[in-house]
């Protein structure tokens, strides 16, 4: 049963979701009153979902860009052709980088899948949205950028890997919600049963990237703004490169001859290197480390093929010029650097994200590279800005539209790194700050703080904390860290 306005306890930790529901209902009701119900009713019928979009006029939407946000999984920022990787084939990402701009200093604020995904959706740090690790449920308390876009009249679809713990939310503001809960929400590379608007349906295409891309293309086809006035926003969330790595038959094995030793650190051996530090046993269970890395690259190439497909589709439909495409990863990935395998340590390989924006007409230097510091929490305010929708003031991220336009536009000089221990990974909870030059991290237990001078030591080989623990530099960084809530 729907709550009345005064039934909401506004003294609760104030959920923006609640505010949106209440104001949406109130605005919808008000508009119904003004329009006598008739016009609003028919408009709602056309729009398909609730009263939320009743006040978005068709003319106001004219000329708004379509938005296609593509998310990869555990994608190391260097593992793209356009980033200089020696053998991986990523023509789709390369095309995006050639026609758009690539941000070379993009980061996540919490280096773990679920918190990062929640940050992307909400524009908030993890301590704000509450998804602290992959065991902490999505609370449905905070609104997402997709909800704001939907209210502004956009046709919205979330397609692919949701991967946040807890009960799958309904997200009624979406026109299409396609996801899966199979295996902790990780899905499988082949034949994953899909949930389409809450109903389970068998997979239609065997391979997961093809499956979700087809849904995205169908959605765009049905919501082609050339046929109407509503622009679309599609959030296409892929599974590659999450283990266990399985590529489709025609891609599997394509890197068998690739020289993996050229890419991985020299202390990594192909046969016994394992996932957990000091555990060589898992290596043999999972297969040779070199083969795992090849498999990882193959899955990324498989995903890229479907990026090519959707870009080609946009071309064929004449939508490319008015569709902004962003590709990003949820985390980076360490492949043996610092004797670590995984995504959770606060090293650069884990926290750096691939981040490419193609924004026709907006980017004056296609193929350019950006040095500004951008974050996963910037996605929400940026997409809202691109759509001309005002971002809620309490989002932690900032719009990077000025940086997309101009390589000299200012973004930020530092950000908060935070992580909550996640069983069974052996990384303690930590909190730190990453500035243009330094990275300072304090751990909850088990480790002394880290201090790296990223200018002099970009590979983070020397922890300066022991020699500088009384220095002004440390005090300054500690002060900055304290400045974050």
């Amino acid at each position, binding site marked *: 049963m729907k709550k009345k306005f005064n039934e909401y306890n506004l003294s609760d930790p104030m959920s923006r979701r609640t505010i949106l529901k209440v104001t949406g209902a109130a605005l919808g009701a008000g508009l119904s009153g003004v329009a006598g119900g008739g016009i609003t009713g028919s408009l709602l019928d056309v729009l398909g979902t609730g009263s939320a979009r009743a006040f978005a006029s068709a003319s106001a939407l004219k000329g708004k860009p379509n938005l296609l946000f593509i998310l990869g999984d555990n994608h190391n920022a260097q593992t793209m052709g356009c980033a200089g990787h020696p053998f991986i084939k990523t023509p789709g990402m390369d095309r995006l980088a050639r026609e758009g701009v690539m941000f070379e200093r993009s980061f996540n604020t919490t280096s773990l899948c679920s918190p990062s995904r929640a940050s992307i959706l909400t524009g908030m740090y993890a301590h704000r949205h509450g998804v602290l690790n992959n065991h902490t449920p999505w609370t449905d308390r905070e609104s997402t950028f997709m909800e704001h876009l939907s209210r502004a009249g956009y046709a919205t679809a979330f397609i692919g890997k949701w991967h946040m713990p807890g009960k799958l939310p309904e997200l009624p503001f979406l026109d299409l919600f396609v996801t899966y809960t199979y*295996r902790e929400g990780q899905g499988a590379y082949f034949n994953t049963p899909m949930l389409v608007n809450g109903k389970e349906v068998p997979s239609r295409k065997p391979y997961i990237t093809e499956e979700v891309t087809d849904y995205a293309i169908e959605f765009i086809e049905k919501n082609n703004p050339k046929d109407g006035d509503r622009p679309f926003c599609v959030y296409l969330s892929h599974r590659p490169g999450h283990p266990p790595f399985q590529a489709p038959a025609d891609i599997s094995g394509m890197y068998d001859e690739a020289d993996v030793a050229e890419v991985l650190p020299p202390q990594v051996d192909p046969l016994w290197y394992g996932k957990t530090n000091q555990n060589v046993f898992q290596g043999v269970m999972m297969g040779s480390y070199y083969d795992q890395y090849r498999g990882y690259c193959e899955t990324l190439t498989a995903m890229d093929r479907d990026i090519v497909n959707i870009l080609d589709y946009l071309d064929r439909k004449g939508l490319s010029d008015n569709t902004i495409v962003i590709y990003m990863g949820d985390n980076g990935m360490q492949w043996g650097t610092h004797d670590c395998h995984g995504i959770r340590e606060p090293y650069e390989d884990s926290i750096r994200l691939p981040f490419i924006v193609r924004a026709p007409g907006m980017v004056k230097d296609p193929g350019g590279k950006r040095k500004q510091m951008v974050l996963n929490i910037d996605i929400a305010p940026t997409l809202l800005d691109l759509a001309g929708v005002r971002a809620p003031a309490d989002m932690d991220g900032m719009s990077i539209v000025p940086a997309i336009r101009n390589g000299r536009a200012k973004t930020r000089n530092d950000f908060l790194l935070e992580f909550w221990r996640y069983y069974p990974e052996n990384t303690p909870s930590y909190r730190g700050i990453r500035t243009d030059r330094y990275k300072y991290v304090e751990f909850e237990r088990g480790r002394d703080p880290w201090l790296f001078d990223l200018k002099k030591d970009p590979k983070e080989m020397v922890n300066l904390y022991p020699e500088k623990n009384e220095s002004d530099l440390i005090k300054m960084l500690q002060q900055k860290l304290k400045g974050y809530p």
Partner: protein
Amino acid sequence: MPKNTFMNRFVMPVVPVLLLAIIGYTGYFGSREIDHYTLHQVVAAVTGTLYFVAIAFGTLYVFTSSQMRGATLGESILASFITPFIWMTKEVLVLLESHPFIECLYWYVSPLHIWLVIFMAIEMGAASLFVRKKKMKRGEEAGGKMMPILVVTGGLVIFVLMYAWGKGENLYVIFLEGYRLFFGSGV
């Protein structure tokens, strides 16, 4: 035949496997300090293999040797578990860096460890059959072969099924569900 001492029938079979594991472990992780690429790769491959063999296949030797030296079935099983248990405990201790002690204990029942224990059961069954044959040749009293055959067959079936069921991923999901049941999100 006089009964062997505890040292002889229990400790002596364990020592070579434990030593092999220690040498393998030390050599493998020490190899990361070797700057010479090829030398590092060779040392890592050899010592990594030794380490893995000691943990995964050590039971074959320990069980056989202790049985041949007159250990009881219980003693042989216990002796077989010593090196793998130390390895499991090391893994549990690694987690202490980030998780409370009680949560670390839960790692003992991780799918990887369960897999290892089932594999060890298969090895013990196979070793029993081998020991039985040897003892019969010597004219000594040997137990029946039904139980070892059942253990080997049953163990193999479980082992293969565990892998076949989502390459172990589904088991891992159950393990994580168990974690959340006991400890919530842990934070």
